[in-house]
């Protein structure tokens, strides 16, 4: 359960449209209409006993502990299911009520082990509390009768136990799984006394359960209990912080014992997650104290030399001297830096400042280059701001959603649960994805349209849909003419209405029947509020930016921007993708998306930073690699990013890294990139530092330090030290001062400060004089760029074509239990769910190649070859295979190509022509990987960690 130090109001809040006045125990109380008597009492400070009710779930009325008396009514209604009515007079305590409640408790306790002193919930158990408040003194029935006290525990889930002897069958867990998570994994089996809770046919691990933890929070007893609490006991204090995994940015309470985390619990007041979580944030935090953590700085002059453990001072001095040496020899522009979307805003800001002011060039880029850079370009061009338009709560008002190139149940699980809630309540759904992702059909949710397009044809599909809308008179002409540039609209309209963009003309190319394209377009255009959600299946294409603009076109032409329920919503992969982009990580932009060519902006920064800023864009990540190979780029500082594993065309990346004279890697583990490094600076996990993350809805939330940095320095302090050693001292005592500087220099952040975030909980930028409390929905009155701009989005087929030699298309993605390169999640029990990357292939393609389920197969492209285990599944369409890149040894990026988005160079991870061959052994690359890994292992100091060497 939640900590009993957090108040539980018993039933959910109701929106305050109308209010109702009543009396509870003689006290006048006014609450929103629809509020339960139980909640109204709690709001007035009167805690009515309860067991089956909790404020995250709708009332159920089964335990009969919350009975009250209402003047003028007969009987004893349950206060959780009774709504407040005007003038009602409620009595919560009387002798009769006390007797009734004691009777209920007596029955519960007669079938409950009395091992409270040794129970892990001791001190935080609602049953125990209720026994106390109802004054239970004896249990007359004894244990002699039938009971459940011998039922075995289910310990199959690595993170929590299910001990049925403690279960009171209140069904809070079942309802949490249904209502909040939407997985419907739990059932109440049997009836009456014989009823029990069951997860699937055998146990939790083998059930549909996705380990979100909602049932564990909801359980009022120790039946469902975190194993960390079983092992370590109850926490002694808690600190509010933010999940460091995906772009949903869930708020958490880190529950602590001293400086040790014992549990992470989603924060009920978290505005992104409203008390929900997924397996990663809730349970997969053990990596932070994993023995593989690098805790001592190390240096070496060649990557074939043994590592030498040194002091921080020596490591920093060496790194700085190398940067200076390289710049003196090869010129100022021969070095650069890479910021990470896994780091805080403040850290990212400091790295780009270090590059621009300390290195004196603009060679700074971020891993968003390889994920959402097309979002930045596409949305800035069309709408005027490089960010999603809505908050997550907006989905409550959505009538029809398009999900394109995103797999929210795996990639953005907490928001997927919100989507499913809305879909169960009646919104319609269009899924545009080559795979039949889970959202297409989950319990009580079915997509109205699944358009299983061929990878690489997003633009064709979106153009065809827009064609239908324009030619069938479904465009919102009034909205468009008022809000958008009319001449551009006319140009676009002529283009889109041309027969080449009709569904019939494009169906062969995109593989989606024209009738489905027409049906989906009509459904979306005619829905009241239409919202588009998208992910990397949109951006990671040679037409990534074009697709983002086609999405914006579709939203504008249907009038779906500028109010709750609508909008263009990029689902960001990593926790701080939005933030790292906002902070000026791109080589052409200073913080706040302002081009380095703008003299006024440059002047502002130059004055504050005290150094001139270059007026030309620097190198992007793939350009840095090319320049490294051609010998003009020699030094690189990488903070918290594993480019050797995550970037495409691995062999090319390896060659580039080998060409560097100084690679400085700052990471919490010896990641793949670190194996090519000359300086290794230990990083700090999100638990070890202060800062902020900005999630997919532009929400800036605090990350709070709950333990000291394991290696002694927080990441921001390391960047500051490096800058000082380079001769450009920065003066900060705390990350809050970095945020103050960001606010000073960035118009969309002028109202942001740590004090205000503490006060409001979180802030969605823009936050300034015009919007002092932040901006949940953008472009309300007008677009940020003034008028919305339609852009002609011609479909251009990817250069990556299937051939006789490579007849299949490989597309890549993520799974729920692992995160990005897996450096964190592979070091947790999440590996129980996914201990290796696999290749999903359709039965037809498998049969043709003589491939059986579970065998090792060779995956080959014109770039390279690797070996994976095959999973034969009808989720795939024939001709398309799929895998993930969570494990370095699978070498998926050995196969991916150098093709990239025309506008931003975001790599085309989603389309690679491949062949799959049965009965494979490790590929040559994998054998090379193994031997390089063991060579690098041999170069580590004996005392040091092993890291990702295997």
């Amino acid at each position, binding site marked *: 359960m939640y900590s009993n130090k957090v108040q539980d109001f018993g039933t959910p809040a109701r929106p305050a449209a109308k209010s109702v006045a009543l009396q509870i125990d003689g006290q006048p109380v006014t609450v929103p209409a629809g509020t339960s008597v139980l909640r109204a009492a709690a709001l007035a400070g009167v805690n009515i006993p309860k067991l089956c009710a909790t404020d995250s779930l709708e009332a159920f009325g089964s335990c009969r502990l919350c009975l009250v008396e209402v003047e003028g009514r007969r009987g004893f209604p349950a206060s959780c299911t009774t709504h407040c009515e005007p003038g009602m007079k409620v009595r919560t305590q009387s002798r009769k009520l006390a007797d009734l409640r004691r009777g209920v408790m007596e029955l519960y306790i007669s079938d409950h082990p009395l091992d409270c002193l040794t129970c892990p919930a001791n001190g935080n158990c609602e049953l125990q509390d209720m026994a106390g408040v109802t004054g239970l003194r004896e249990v007359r029935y004894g244990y002699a009768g039938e009971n459940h006290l011998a039922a075995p525990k289910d310990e199959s889930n690595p993170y929590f136990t299910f001990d049925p002897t403690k279960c009171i069958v209140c069904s809070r867990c079942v309802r949490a799984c249904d209502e909040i998570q939407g997985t419907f994994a739990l059932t109440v089996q049997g009836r009456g006394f014989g009823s029990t809770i069951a997860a699937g046919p055998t146990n939790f691990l083998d059930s549909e359960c996705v380990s979100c933890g909602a049932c564990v929070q909801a359980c009022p007893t120790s039946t469902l209990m975190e194993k960390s609490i079983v092992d370590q006991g109850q926490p002694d204090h808690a600190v509010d912080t933010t999940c460091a995994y995906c772009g949903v940015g869930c708020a958490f309470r880190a529950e602590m014992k001293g400086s040790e985390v014992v549990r992470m619990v989603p924060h009920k007041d978290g505005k992104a997650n409203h008390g929900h979580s997924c397996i990663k944030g809730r349970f997969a935090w053990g990596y932070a104290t994993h023995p593989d953590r690098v805790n001592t700085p190390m240096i070496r002059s060649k990557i074939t030399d043994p590592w030498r453990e040194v002091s921080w001072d020596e490591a920093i001095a060496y790194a700085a001297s190398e940067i200076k040496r390289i710049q003196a020899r090869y010129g100022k522009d021969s070095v650069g830096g890479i910021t990470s979307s896994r780091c805080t805003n403040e850290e990212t800001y400091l790295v780009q400042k270090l590059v621009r002011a300390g290195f004196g060039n603009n060679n700074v880029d971020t891993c968003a280059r390889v994920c959402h850079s097309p979002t930045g370009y596409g949305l800035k061009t069309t709408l005027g701001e490089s960010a999603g338009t809505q908050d997550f709560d907006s989905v409550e008002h959505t009538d029809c959603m398009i999900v394109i190139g995103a797999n929210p149940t795996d990639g953005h699980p907490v928001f997927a649960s919100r989507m499913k809630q809305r879909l169960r309540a009646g919104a319609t759904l269009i899924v545009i994805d080559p795979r039949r992702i889970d959202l297409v059909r989950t319990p009580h949710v079915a997509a109205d349209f699944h358009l299983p397009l061929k990878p690489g044809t997003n633009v064709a599909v979106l153009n065809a849909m827009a064609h239908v809308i324009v030619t069938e008179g479904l465009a919102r002409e009034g909205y468009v003419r008022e809000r958008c540039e009319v001449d551009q609209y006319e140009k676009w309209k002529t*283009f889109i209405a041309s027969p080449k963009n009709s569904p019939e003309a494009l169906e062969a190319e995109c593989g989606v029947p024209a009738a489905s394209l027409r049906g989906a377009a009509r459904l979306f255009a005619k829905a009241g509020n239409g919202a588009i959600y998208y992910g990397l299946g949109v951006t990671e294409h040679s037409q990534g930016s074009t697709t983002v603009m086609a999405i914006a076109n579709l939203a504008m032409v249907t009038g779906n921007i500028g109010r709750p329920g609508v909008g263009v919503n990029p689902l960001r992969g990593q926790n701080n993708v939005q933030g790292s982009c906002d902070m000026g990580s791109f080589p*052409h932009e200073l913080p706040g998306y302002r081009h380095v*060519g703008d003299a006024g902006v440059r002047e502002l920064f130059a004055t504050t930073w005290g150094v001139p800023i270059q007026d*030309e*864009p620097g190198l992007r990540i793939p*350009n840095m690699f090319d320049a490294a190979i*051609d010998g003009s780029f020699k030094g690189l500082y990488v903070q918290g990013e594993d480019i050797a594993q995550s970037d495409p065309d691995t062999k090319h990346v390896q060659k580039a890294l080998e060409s560097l004279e100084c690679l400085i890697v700052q990471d919490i583990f010896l990641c793949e990139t670190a194996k090519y490094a000359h300086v290794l600076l230990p990083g700090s996990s999100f638990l070890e530092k202060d800062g902020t993350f900005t999630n997919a809805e532009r929400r800036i939330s605090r990350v709070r330090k709950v333990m000291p940095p394991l290696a002694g320095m927080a990441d921001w302090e390391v960047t500051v030290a490096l800058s000082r050693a380079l001769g450009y001292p920065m003066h900060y005592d705390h990350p809050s001062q970095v945020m103050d500087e960001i606010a000073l220099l960035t118009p969309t952040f002028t109202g942001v400060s740590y004090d205000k975030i503490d006060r409001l909980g979180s802030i969605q930028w823009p936050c300034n004089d015009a919007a002092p409390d932040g901006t949940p929905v953008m472009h309300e009155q007008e677009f940020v760029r003034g008028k919305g701009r339609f852009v002609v989005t011609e479909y251009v087929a990817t250069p990556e074509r299937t051939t006789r030699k490579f007849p299949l298309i490989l597309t890549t993605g993520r799974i729920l239990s692992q995160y990005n390169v897996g450096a964190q999640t592979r070091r947790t029990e999440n590996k129980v769910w996914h201990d290796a990357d696999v290749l999903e292939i359709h039965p037809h393609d498998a049969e043709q190649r003589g491939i059986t389920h579970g065998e090792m197969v060779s995956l080959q492209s014109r770039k390279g070859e690797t070996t994976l285990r095959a999973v034969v599944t009808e989720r795939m369409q024939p001709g398309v295979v799929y895998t993930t890149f969570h494990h370095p040894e699978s070498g998926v990026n050995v196969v991916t190509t150098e093709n990239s988005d025309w506008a*931003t*160079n975001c790599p085309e991870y989603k389309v690679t022509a491949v062949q799959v061959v049965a009965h494979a052994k490790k590929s040559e690359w994998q054998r090379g990987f193994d031997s390089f890994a063991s060579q690098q292992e041999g170069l580590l100091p004996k005392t040091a960690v092993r890291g990702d060497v295997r």
Partner: protein
Amino acid sequence: MDGKKLVKMANDIAAFFAAEPEPKVALEGIAGHIKKFWAPRMRRELLALLDAGGDGMAPAVREALAAHRRLLQPATR
């Protein structure tokens, strides 16, 4: 840098602007994009490749580079 890659990148940009009905706007678009996002050393090399015959360059790229050479030519550094 890898000249072939630079040409491919420029050609990809030109392919996007090919849908622009007004040729002048398309050429401005191509050149403007390259100026805005490409580091000077990349632009310098692209122009050198044009001068060396522009092997593999899409006609629109050649035209755009020729028409907007002054914009694209980086100050020497």
